[in-house]
């Protein structure tokens, strides 16, 4: 399946895209996405272990399965305030 993941801040700048698309084998988890992101975007790789992920605006873990058409975001450590 095609998985789309939004990226922000340094993650976006390092990947060079605010949204990336990855072709993933099903079933896939967020942990699988993390691995493929690092492989597909070497400049992003050092930051990937520090990303949190969200599906539909809720934080999820590496064990969370990725549903079809999921609204996924890769969230580097936040610094609002």
């Amino acid at each position, binding site marked *: 399946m095609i998985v789309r993941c*939004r990226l*922000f*801040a*340094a993650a976006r*700048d*390092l990947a060079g895209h605010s949204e990336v698309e990855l072709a993933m084998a099903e079933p896939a988890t967020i942990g699988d996405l993390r691995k493929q992101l690092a492989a597909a975007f070497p400049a992003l790789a050092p*930051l990937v272990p*520090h990303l949190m992920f*969200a599906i539909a*605006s*809720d*934080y999820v873990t590496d064990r969370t399965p990725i549903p079809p058409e999921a609204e996924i*975001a890769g*969230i*580097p*450590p*936040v*610094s*609002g*305030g």
Partner: protein
Amino acid sequence: MIELTTNPIDPQALLARVSSPAAGAVLLFLGTVREMTGDRQTTRLEYEAYEPMAGKKLAELVAEARSRWPLVGCAVMHRLGSLELGEVSVAVAVSCPHRAEAFEAGRWLIDTIKQVVPIWKKEVWSDGQTDWVHPGLDAPRSTSGREPH
């Protein structure tokens, strides 16, 4: 009242929103753009958010604060975009019957906002360098070298 805005934040609007004869204590916290970090000088900050999620998380935090403390009023605003020195980046206002609750709830809200809400700031230093701020990462990520922008 929960708002993400590119317009300047008016603290008076938050105070008006939480003021009530049911409250004996109002607490307002403002985060403001500081010029110096150690010996480095900031020219401005640029904030970006994952807006749908940031709005949802802020609403969840306000709901949790209301469940933990007897809040009469609660208002949170976060600025996005480019901020000059001294400008307000975040404002949290709470009102409660008594002051202990107001201090606790206000402190918890700003601490938790800074931990979980997907908003990021980029330092634009006076030498033209820029750094996204990502707490816990060893080094700041310089993403634009020495080009001012």
